[in-house]
C-alpha cells in the first residue's frame, strides 16, 4: 500500500484527457491492434454464417420441389424493362480531360494491356452516376472502338477485355436513349449476340447484361436483337450446366425481350417452354424475372394468353400467388389479371386452380397496394363471368370484403371493388342478387354514383337496374307492395344521387338514369318532374 502524498480527489470527469487524445489524432494508426481484431471478428462472423448456411442447404429432401427461398438482387418495384442496375463496382477516377485523352489513346493502341487498362478505366468512369466525364466518353468514336474490342480473342487476356468492353457498353446502355442509340448504331448487337457463344461464362453473362439493357430500350431494339438471332442464342443459355448467376442474367434479359410482342408464334412457344421450366426454380430472382416475362406475354393479346394457358402454367402461377416475396407475387398477379380478362373458359380454369382463396388472402393481408389492386381487378374480371363463376365468388365469401373495399379501400382498389360489385349484380341470377343485396351491395353501388368515371358509372347503373328488377319480383311479397330495393335505395340516399346524375354530361348515362327513374319511381311522387335536357334532341 504505497502512501500517497495528499489524498487525491476522487476521479473527476476530466474531459481534458479525452481532448488531449484528440489532438492531432490518427486513431486508426494508433489503434492498429484493436482494429485488426475487429476485422478478424467480422471475418469470423461471416465464416460462421457461411458454415451454417452451407449445412442448412445440405438437404436430404430435394430443394427443387419448393418454390420458396433464396435471395437475389432486388428488382425495383417499377421494373418494367428499363435501364438495368449499373454494375456494382463504382469507383471515382482521377482523370481529368487530359487524362481522358490518354485513356482514349490506350483504347486505340494495338497493345492488349493498354487496351484493357483503358477499357477498365472507361468502364469505371461510366459506372459513377453523374460523372461529368461520362458524356465525353460516349462518343461514336469511343463506342465504335469498344464494339471492335468485343471481337478480340486471340490473346489469353482477350476474354477479360471482352468482359470489360461489354461491361462498358452495359454501362452506356444503362443511360439515356441517345446513349443506347450510339451503341446500337455502332453495330454492337450482332457482336454481343456472337459473344453468347463464348466458352467463358463471365463473357456470356456480361453480353447478356448489355443485351438486356438494349432490349429495354424500345421495340425496335428488341427486334434488332431477335433479327440477329439473339433470342435463339439466349434460349440456349438455359441448360443444366449453366451457373446460377448466368441463369439469373439470362432470365432477366429474356424477360426484357418479352416486353414487346414476339414476331412469331413459334418463338412465343419456344420461350414459354423455357419459362415453364423456370417457374420451378427456387431462386427468387430467376423466379421473379420468369414471372415478369409471363406477365409481359399476357399483355400482348388473346393469342398469347391462349398459348400461356395451353402451356399449362396457370396452375403453377396460381400457386405462386402465395409466394412470400412481393417480387414474385407482383408479376404473377399482373399475368393472372390479364388471363382473367379472357373468355369464361379460361376464367373457369383459374377458379378450378383455387385462385379465389389466394385472391382472398392477397386482399386481406398486408400486401403492397399494386398487388391488391391487381387482385381486385382479377376478382372483378371473374365477376363479369358466368353465374356459376359469380356463385364461386359468393361461396368464397368475397362479397363482404368487396363491399368493405368499395367503401374504405384506396382509390384504385376502391374502383376495382366497385367494378366487381357492379359486374356481379349485373350478371347475377335473382337468387345471387338477393344474396348480394343482403351483403350491402345497394349501398356500395349507390355510393359509387358520385364517381366521375363514366364507364364505371354505367356499370353501376346496370347493376342497380338488375337489382331493381329483382326488387319488382319481391313486390308481391311486400305488404305495402313496394319495391323493397327501391326503398332501400331511397333510404341510403341513392335516389338523390341518381337524380343528380341527370346533370351528368354523357348520353348513355343520362338515358340509363332516366330509364331507372321512370321505371321505378316516376309514379310514386308527384313532385318529381321529368327533366328534359334543353339542348338534346327529342327522340
Amino acid at each position, binding site marked *: 500500500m504505497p*502512501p500517497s502524498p495528499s489524498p487525491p480527489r476522487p476521479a473527476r470527469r476530466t474531459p481534458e484527457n479525452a481532448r488531449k487524445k484528440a*489532438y492531432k489524432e490518427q486513431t486508426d494508426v494508433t489503434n492498429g*491492434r484493436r482494429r485488426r*481484431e475487429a476485422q*478478424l471478428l467480422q471475418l469470423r462472423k461471416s465464416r460462421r454464417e457461411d458454415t451454417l448456411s452451407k*449445412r442448412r442447404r*445440405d438437404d436430404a429432401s430435394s430443394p427443387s420441389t419448393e418454390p420458396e427461398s433464396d435471395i437475389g438482387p432486388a428488382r425495383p418495384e417499377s421494373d418494367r424493362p428499363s435501364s438495368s442496375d449499373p454494375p456494382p463496382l463504382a*469507383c471515382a477516377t482521377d482523370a481529368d480531360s487530359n487524362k481522358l485523352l490518354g485513356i482514349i489513346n490506350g483504347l486505340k493502341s494495338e497493345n492488349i494491356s493498354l487496351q484493357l487498362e483503358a477499357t477498365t478505366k472507361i468502364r469505371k468512369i461510366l459506372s459513377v452516376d453523374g460523372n461529368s466525364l461520362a458524356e465525353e466518353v460516349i462518343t461514336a468514336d469511343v463506342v465504335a472502338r469498344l464494339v471492335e474490342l468485343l471481337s478480340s480473342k486471340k490473346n489469353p487476356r482477350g476474354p477479360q477485355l471482352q468482359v470489360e468492353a461489354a461491361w462498358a457498353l452495359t454501362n452506356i446502355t444503362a443511360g439515356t436513349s441517345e446513349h443506347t442509340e450510339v451503341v446500337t448504331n455502332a453495330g454492337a448487337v450482332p457482336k454481343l449476340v456472337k459473344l453468347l457463344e463464348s466458352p467463358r461464362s463471365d463473357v456470356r453473362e456480361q453480353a447478356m447484361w448489355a443485351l438486356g439493357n438494349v432490349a429495354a430500350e424500345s421495340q425496335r431494339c428488341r427486334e434488332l436483337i431477335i433479327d440477329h438471332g439473339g433470342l435463339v442464342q439466349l434460349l440456349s443459355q438455359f441448360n443444366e450446366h449453366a451457373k446460377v448467376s448466368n441463369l439469373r442474367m439470362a432470365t432477366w434479359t429474356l424477360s426484357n425481350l418479352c416486353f414487346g410482342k414476339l414476331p412469331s408464334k413459334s418463338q412465343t412457344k419456344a420461350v414459354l417452354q423455357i419459362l415453364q421450366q423456370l417457374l420451378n426454380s427456387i431462386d427468387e430472382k430467376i423466379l421473379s424475372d420468369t414471372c415478369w416475362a409471363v406477365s409481359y406475354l399476357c399483355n400482348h393479346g388473346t393469342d398469347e394468353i391462349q398459348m400461356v394457358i395451353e402451356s399449362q402454367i396457370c396452375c403453377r402461377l396460381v400457386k405462386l400467388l402465395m409466394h412470400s416475396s412481393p417480387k414474385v407475387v407482383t408479376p404473377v398477379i399482373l399475368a393472372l389479371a390479364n388471363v382473367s380478362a379472357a373468355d369464361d373458359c379460361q376464367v373457369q380454369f383459374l377458379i378450378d386452380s383455387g385462385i379465389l382463396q389466394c385472391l382472398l388472402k392477397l386482399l386481406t393481408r398486408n400486401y403492397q397496394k399494386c398487388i391488391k389492386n391487381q387482385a381486385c381487378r382479377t376478382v372483378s374480371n371473374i365477376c363479369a363471368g358466368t353465374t356459376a363463376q359469380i356463385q364461386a365468388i359468393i361461396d368464397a365469401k368475397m362479397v363482404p370484403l368487396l363491399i368493405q373495399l368499395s367503401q374504405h379501400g384506396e382509390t384504385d382498389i376502391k374502383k376495382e371493388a366497385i367494378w366487381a360489385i357492379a359486374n356481379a349484380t349485373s350478371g347475377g341470377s335473382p337468387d345471387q342478387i338477393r344474396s348480394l343485396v343482403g351483403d350491402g351491395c345497394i349501398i356500395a353501388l349507390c355510393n359509387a354514383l358520385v364517381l366521375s368515371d363514366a364507364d364505371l358509372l354505367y356499370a353501376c347503373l346496370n347493376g342497380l337496374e338488375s337489382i331493381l328488377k329483382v326488387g319488382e319480383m319481391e313486390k308481391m311479397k311486400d305488404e305495402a307492395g313496394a319495391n323493397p330495393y327501391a326503398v332501400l335505395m331511397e333510404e341510403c340516399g341513392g335516389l338523390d344521387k341518381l337524380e343528380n346524375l341527370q346533370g351528368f354530361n354523357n348520353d348513355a348515362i343520362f338515358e340509363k338514369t332516366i330509364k331507372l327513374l321512370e321505371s321505378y319511381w316516376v309514379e310514386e311522387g308527384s313532385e318529381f318532374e321529368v327533366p328534359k335536357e334543353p339542348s338534346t334532341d327529342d327522340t
Partner: protein
Amino acid sequence: MALEVTQILLNAQSIDAATRNHAEESLKQIQEQNLPAFLLSLSAELANNNKPIESRKLAGLILKNALDAKELHRKNDLAQRWLSLDLATKTQIKTSLLQTFSSPVSDARSTAAQVIAKVAGIELPHNQWPELIGSLLSNIHQVETHVKQATLETLGYVCEEVDPQVVDQEQVNRILTAVVQGMNATETSSDVRLAATRALYNALGFAQANFTNDMERDYIMRVVCEATQSSDVKIRQAAFECLVAISSTYYEKLAPYMQDIFNITSKAVREDEEPVALQAIEFWSSICDEEIDILDDYRSEYTGDSDVPCFYFIKQALPALVPMLLETLLKQEEDQDQDEGAWNIAMAGGTCLGLVARTVGDEIVPLVMPFIEENISKPDWRGREAATYAFGSILDGPSPGKLAPIVNVALNFMLAALSRDPNNHVKDTTAWTLGRIFEFLHGAAVETSVITQENCQQILTVLLQSMKDVPNVAEKACGALYFLAQGYEDEGSVSPLTPFFQDIFQMLLFVTHREDATESNLRTSAYEALNEVVRCSNDETAPIVMQLIPVIMLELHQTVEAQKLTSDERDKQNDLQGLLCGCLQVIIQKMGSIEGSKYAFMQYADQIMDLLLKVFASRNATVHEEAMLAIGALAYTAGPNFAKYMPQFYQYLEMGLQNFEEYQICAITVGVVGDLCRALEDKILPYCDGIMTQLLKNLSSNQLHRSVKPPIFSCFGDIALAIGENFEKYLLYAMPMLQSAAELSAHAVSQDDEMLEYTNQLRNGILEAYSGILQGFKSSPKTQALVPYAAHVLQFIDTMYGGREMDDAVMKSALGVLGDLADTLGSHVGPLISQSSSSKDLIEECMVYDDPLIRESAEWAKLAINRAVSG
C-alpha cells in the same frame, strides 16, 4: 476495542523497505484477523487530533480502500462485507468520521469527506444512514468555516458516489440550496466558495427537476456565471468546469444564457490564466459534441430525429467563435509535439476548431481561409504552424467539393514545407495535415480524389524523405502514408503505389530500425503504415509482400533469442514482438486471401508457427494477444493442415483460455478456438475434452469479465459444427449452462443501452450455440438426444419475442434456430413448433422486413418448418 495502530501506520510509510514491508504485513494481518476492530481503529485514528497527520491520512486511505475497489466483483464484495458488520461498529465508525470535520487539520477533514462518501455510496441505496444528509446540512450553519468547507466537500463527494434516484427531491433541493448559497459572492471564505463550486459540479446530475424550473435555473446559472468572475483562480476554474458539465447535461436549457456565456468564455480565453482559459474552450468543444450528436441523429436512417432539438449555438456564434479560436493557435509552446503530456491553449483551441468544422461543415471555410493566407508564409514559425494547424483542423466536416479546390492549390506548398521548413513544429503539423488530406479527400468514397497518378509520386518521395526527419515528424509522415495507402484499398490492379512498393517497404523497415524509433511512437506508426500498405495491396504486388515474410521472421527470431535483458529493454522487446506478430498477422491474411500466393506462402508456415510458439514464452499480455491473432489467421490459411501444429500449440491455447486476469487474451483465444474448428473440422476432436472443460469452467466463473461469455457460447456452436454428433457427450453439461443463461437473458430487464447491448450479445451467443449444435447433429442417428431440449429452446425464443427487445442480429439468429430445430429434428418437433406462439408470428413478421438477410432467414425457417410439420 480499538487497537494501537499509529506506529504501524507510520512504519508503513518509512523509507526503509524492510520496516515498510513488515508494517504492511502487520496491517494485512490485523485486517484479516479482526476486520471490525481494524476499521474501528482506523476511524479512531483519523478522528484523533492528537495523532500525527501522516498516520491519520493513511488510516483514512486504508479505510477508503476497504470500502471500494475498481473491479466490479471486488467492489461488490467490499460492500457486502461492510453491510454485514454489526450495527454498533458501523455507527461508531460513522460517528468518528463525522467528528473529524471539526478537526483543524484540512487533510484529515478531506480524507474523512471521501470515506463518508464511500459509506454513503454503499448504505444509501439500501435505505441505511437516512440521517446523513440531514446531519451534513445542519453543519452548513456552523460558524466555523472549516466545518462548512468540509461539509460542502462531503456533499459533493456523496453526490458523485450515489445515484440521483437514491436521494429524494426534497433532500436534493436542500443540498442544492446549501451548495448554491456557499457559492454566492456574499460568501466571504474562498475555501468555502471553492468547496461549494466543486460540490455543485457533482450535484448537477441531481438538479434535473430544478433545471426545468425557470426561476431556479436562472438562479443557479447566475451564481455559476458570477463565480467565473471570482478573484480566486481556482474558483473561476471550478465555475467553468460547472459550465462545461451544464453544457452537456442541460444543453437544451442553455439558449437564454448563451450570449452571456459567450462573453464570459471569450474574455477568459483571451485574458485569463491557462487552466481557466482551457475550461472556457472546453465549454465550446462540449457544445460541439452535443450538436454533432444531435445532427447525427437527424441524419440517421433509423430515427431521423433527435430527442433533443438542435439549437445551432455553434452556427450562431460562428463569426465570433472562429476568430477567438484562431487567436489561440498562435500561443503554441515550443516543443509541445515532443512532450506527450502537453496540453495548452493552442492545442485545445485547434481541437475545438476541428469540432466546430465537424458541426457546421462548409460554413467554416471562408472564416478560416483569411487567417491561413495571412499567416502561412510568416517569418515567425508560430504563424506558419498556426495556419497549417488551422487548415488541418477543418478538413473533417466541410464537403470534399468545398475543400478540394483549396487543397489542390495548397498541396505543393505543403509538400515543400514538409521538406524544407526550418521548424520541426511546422513540419510536424504539415505532415499531420497531409495525413488528414489523404484521410478525407482521397479514396474510393471521394468523388474526385485530390491525388492523381502524377502528384502521387511526388507525395511519396516527400513522405519517404520525411521519415528520416526527427521522430515526431517521421511519425506523422508514417501516419500520412497510412492514409494514402488506405485510399487505394479498392483500386484493383491500378494503384499508383504499386511501382514504389519496394521503396516503401525499405524505408518503413529502415524507420523501425532507427535508434530513436521508440520516441514519439515512431516505430508503432511505421509498422502500422506497413500493415496498411500490405492490407490495401493487390494481387500484382503479392510477390513483393511475400518477400517481407523472411525479413519479419528474422526480426521476430532475434527478439525471441535475445537473452538477459534489463527490464527497460524487456519492455521495448515486448513492444517490438507485439508489432512484429501484428505485421505477420496482416501478411498471413493477405497471402491467404490471394489464391495464387497461398501455396507459396505455406512454405513458411512451419517456421512461422515455430516462432509464434516461442513468442508465447513472453509474459506480456499484448504480445500474447498479437501472437494469438496471428495464429488465428494462420489457421484460416492452413485449413486442415493446421492439425500438425496442434500438439505443440494446445498448451498455449489452454493457457489463453485460463487467463481470466487479462480477459482480452481469453476472449481472443476463444475466438481462435472457433477458427481452429473451421480449419480442422473433425480433426479438432482429440482436443475437445480439454477445451470444453475449460470453456465450461469459464462460464461458471464470476471472475471472468462478462464480455467473454457470449463468444464462449458461440464457440460451443463452432465446436458442435466441427465435430457433429461427437458433441453428444458434452450435451449433459453444455445444455443446462445454455438453458440457465437463456433464462437469465430472456428475462433480463435492461435499464441502459449498455446492458441491453450485452443482453443481446448473450442471446445471440446462445442462439448461435443452439444453431451450431442442431446443425452439427443434422442427419445423424443421434438427433434423438436433442429432442428433450427442444421445448426449452422454443420457450426461450417465445419469451424473447414477447419481450420485444431483440435487435436484428438476435432476430436473425432466432429465425435460424427455429429453422434448425425443424431441419434437424423434423417431425419430432413439428407439433411443438406449431404450438409455439412466436414461431408463426415472428416468421410472418420477418417476411416483410426491410433487411433482406432477415427475410431470407424467415423464408428458410418457414420452409424448414413446413417440411417438419407436413413430414
